[in-house]
C-alpha cells in the first residue's frame, strides 16, 4: 500500500508541478497584459464614439504641436456609448477628456463630473452665436463645446446614375413631397429599390420620422399651444401635446411610402452600415441620412460606374407660410472635473476648439454646415444642391435642448417607427409611443438653468 502511494505520489507530483508552473506562467502573462501603468510623457485619456480613427488626423496634429503630451484614445461603439459612459461614471472611472451628446453633459454635470469651462478661450468662440451659447449655459456656466453641430436635417442622398437612367432630373430639387413621391413611383415601377433604410437599427427610422418632417412637427406642436412656437419636448413634458401629435404626419408618410412600395423591402434586414454599403454599390435610389456623407469611405471608394452621389433636401409642408429647421449640437467636447490630467485635458479642448483647428477638422471630415460662423470652411460638393434648396426654404432655425426620455431619443421613439415598417398600424404605433413617453416621463431630469 505504501509503495503504491509513493509511486502515485511521484507521478502526481510531476503532473501537478507541470500544471502549476504552466498556470503560474499564464497568470503572469495575463497580469502583464492587463491594466498596467506605463511611465512617460503626459497621457491624456480620451473617450469617443469614433472607432475607425476618424479623429486620428486631428489628434496627430495636436501631438505634433504638443510633443510632451500623448492622447490615449478609447473608442466605444456608438450603440453602447451611453451605457458605458454611465457605468464608468458610477464606478468613478471616467477619462480626462470626453466626447458625448448634450444630454450626457447634463448628466455628468448633475453628478459633479463636468468641468466649468466658462473662462476658457474656446468658449469665447460661442459668442458668435448667442442663441447657441444660451442653450449651453446652465446657471451662468458652460460645460461643453460643440465640436460637431449644424443646421438642418432632411438630407436625401440619391444616386444620380439611377435617376438619369430612369429619365428623372439629374439635379433633383423637388419643391413638394408630391414631387418626391412621383419620382419614387417611377423608380419603384421600374423595379429598382426606391428608398433604403438601415431599419434593423431602429434609430434610423426614428431619426427619419423625427427630423425629416420638422415643419409639420413644429407646426403641429405650435397648433396645440395656441399657435405659439414651443420646443416639442417641453410641450410633451408639460402635457401641452403628445408625441403622437408631432409624429403623426411622419408616421403616416412612412406607412404610405411602404404601402405604395416606395420603401425597399430589404430595409428591415439591414443595419445602418450594411445599408450604406448596399446603397454605395448602386442598389437603391434614395438614402436618407444625416450630414455625415454616407459612410465616408464607401462613397469615397465607390465605383463611379455605379454611384454618382447627389443630395436634395426633403421638402417640408410649410405651416402658416413658415418652414422650420432644427439646429443641432451633436458631438460635444467636455473635460472631466476630476481628471488626473486636468491641465492636459483643458489644453486639448482649447486646441481642438480654436477656430483654425476646428475648421481643419470639419474640412477633412467633410462635415456639413456648422452652427457658428467660421471662416475657411469648405463645403462638401455633394451639399451644393442641398444647401441651395435648404436656403430657398428660408427656415426658422430652432435649437432644441429640452431633455427627452432617457436613452437616445432616436432609438426610443425609433422602435415605434420601425414597428410601422414591420406592419403595425400607424394609430397603434403612435399610441405605443405616447404610452412609452408617459411610462418613462418620471425619469426625465430637467437641468436647472
Amino acid at each position, binding site marked *: *500500500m*505504501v509503495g503504491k*502511494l509513493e509511486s*502515485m*505520489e511521484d*507521478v*502526481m*507530483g510531476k503532473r*501537478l508541478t507541470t*500544471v502549476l508552473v*504552466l*498556470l503560474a506562467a*499564464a*497568470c503572469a*502573462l*495575463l*497580469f502583464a*497584459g*492587463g*491594466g498596467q501603468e506605463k511611465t512617460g510623457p503626459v497621457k491624456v485619456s480620451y473617450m469617443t464614439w469614433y*472607432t*475607425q480613427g476618424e479623429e486620428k488626423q486631428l489628434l496627430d496634429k495636436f501631438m505634433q504641436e504638443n510633443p510632451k503630451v500623448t492622447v490615449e484614445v*478609447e*473608442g*466605444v*461603439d456608438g*450603440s453602447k456609448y451611453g451605457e*458605458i459612459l454611465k*457605468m*464608468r461614471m*458610477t*464606478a*468613478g*472611472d471616467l477619462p480626462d477628456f470626453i466626447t458625448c451628446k448634450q444630454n450626457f453633459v447634463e448628466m455628468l454635470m448633475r453628478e459633479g463630473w463636468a468641468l466649468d469651462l466658462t473662462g476658457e478661450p474656446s468658449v469665447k468662440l460661442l459668442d458668435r452665436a448667442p442663441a447657441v451659447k444660451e442653450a449651453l449655459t446652465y446657471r451662468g456656466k458652460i460645460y461643453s463645446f460643440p465640436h460637431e453641430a449644424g443646421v438642418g436635417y432632411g438630407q436625401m442622398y440619391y444616386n444620380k446614375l439611377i435617376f438619369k437612367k430612369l429619365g428623372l432630373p439629374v439635379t433633383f430639387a423637388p419643391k413638394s413631397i408630391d414631387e418626391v413621391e412621383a419620382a419614387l413611383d417611377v423608380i419603384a415601377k421600374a423595379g429598382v429599390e426606391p428608398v433604403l433604410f438601415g431599419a434593423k437599427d431602429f434609430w434610423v427610422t426614428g431619426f427619419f420620422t423625427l427630423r425629416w418632417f420638422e415643419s409639420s412637427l413644429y407646426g403641429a406642436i405650435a397648433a396645440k399651444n395656441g399657435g405659439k412656437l414651443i420646443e416639442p419636448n417641453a410641450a410633451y413634458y408639460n402635457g401641452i401635446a403628445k408625441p403622437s401629435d408631432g409624429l403623426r404626419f411622419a408616421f403616416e408618410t412612412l406607412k404610405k411610402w411602404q404601402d405604395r412600395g416606395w420603401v425597399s423591402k430589404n430595409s428591415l434586414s439591414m*443595419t*445602418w*452600415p*450594411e445599408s*450604406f*454599403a*448596399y446603397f454605395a*454599390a448602386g442598389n437603391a435610389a434614395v438614402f436618407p441620412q444625416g450630414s455625415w456623407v454616407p*459612410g465616408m469611405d*464607401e462613397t469615397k471608394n465607390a465605383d463611379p460606374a455605379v454611384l454618382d452621389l447627389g443630395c436634395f433636401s426633403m421638402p417640408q409642408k410649410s405651416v402658416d407660410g413658415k418652414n422650420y429647421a432644427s439646429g443641432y449640437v451633436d458631438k460635444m467636447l467636455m473635460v472631466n472635473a476630476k481628471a488626473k490630467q486636468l491641465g492636459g485635458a483643458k489644453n486639448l479642448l482649447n486646441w481642438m476648439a480654436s477656430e483654425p483647428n476646428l475648421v481643419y477638422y470639419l474640412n477633412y471630415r467633410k462635415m456639413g454646415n456648422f452652427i457658428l460662423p467660421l471662416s475657411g470652411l469648405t463645403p462638401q460638393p455633394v451639399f451644393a444642391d442641398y444647401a441651395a434648396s435648404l436656403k430657398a426654404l428660408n427656415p426658422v432655425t430652432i435649437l432644441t435642448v429640452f431633455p427627452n426620455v432617457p436613452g437616445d431619443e432616436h432609438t426610443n421613439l425609433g422602435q415605434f417607427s420601425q414597428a410601422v415598417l414591420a406592419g403595425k398600424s400607424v394609430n397603434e404605433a403612435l399610441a405605443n409611443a405616447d404610452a412609452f413617453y408617459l411610462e418613462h416621463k418620471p425619469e426625465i431630469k430637467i437641468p436647472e438653468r
Partner: protein
Amino acid sequence: MSAHSFGARPSAASLVLRYAVASIALLVIGVPILYGLLCAFKPSREILLARFLPTRPTLGNFSRIFVDPRVLRAILNSFLVCFVALALGCLLCLLASIPIARRKERIFGIFYFLFLSSLIIPTISGFVTLYMMMVRLRLVNSLLAVSVLFAANMLPIGVLIFSSFLKTVPFELEEAAKIEGCGFFRRIFLVVAPLITAPIMSLAVLQFPAVWNNFLTPLLFLRKPEARTLTLLIYNYTRDHESDFGAIFALLFVGMLIPFGLFLGARRLIEQSIGITAGGIKG
C-alpha cells in the same frame, strides 16, 4: 414502425429510410456552417449577393485581418483566458466536490444545494454589481480577473459532474491513505485526482466552448483593445467594420477553426462528460 423493433433484423428499406433522415438532418446542420466558412473566401461585394459558392475565391480577406495586430493578440488572449479559467475551475470544482461527495455532514449537502440552485440565476442580473466591484478593485481590463469569473461560473456544473462521479468510485483507497497518515489535501491531489482525471478532462473540454465563446462578460469588463478576447473582437468587428463582410467572415473562419480543432481531438471526452452530466441530473 420499424424503428421500434429493436430485436428484429433491420430491413433494407428501413435502413435506407434511416440514412435518408440522418442525411437530411446533416444537411440542415451542415449547410449553414459550410456557407459561413465559404463566405470567408468571397470578396465583400459578393457576400451581399447571397450565392452559395464563391465565384472568384480569394484569400484577400485573411490578409486583411492578419495585418491587424489586434487579431493575433485576441487569439492569444482567448487561449490564455481559457487555460487559466479551465485549470483554476477544475481545481476549485475538485476542492468543492470531494468533501461534498465523501462527507456525510448536513452542511455539505447545503453547499451542494447552493451550488446547484444558482443555475436559475440569470447571468445578466449580476452585472451592474460585478462591474462596480471590479472597478473598485481596479480589475477592469484584467484578463486574470475575467478568468477567475469564468472559473467561478464553472462550479455548479463541475460540482455536479465530479460529485456524481465520485459517488460511483469506492473510497477504500482514500480510507487507506487516511489511515496511513496522508493529510486531507495531500489525499486530494495524490489519491483522488488520478482517479478523477477523465471527468476533469471531460469538464474542461465541455466548458471550453462556453469560455471561449463567451462575449458578454468580456464585453463589459475588457475594454482596452489589447485586452479583448477573440469572440469579443468578432463582436466588435461586426459593429465597427460592419460593411467589410469579407473581413468579418474571415475572422469568423478563424474563430470557428479553433473550437473545431479541439473538438476533433476531444470528441470522446465530450460525449463522456455529457453522459455524466445527464447521470448527475438524474441523481
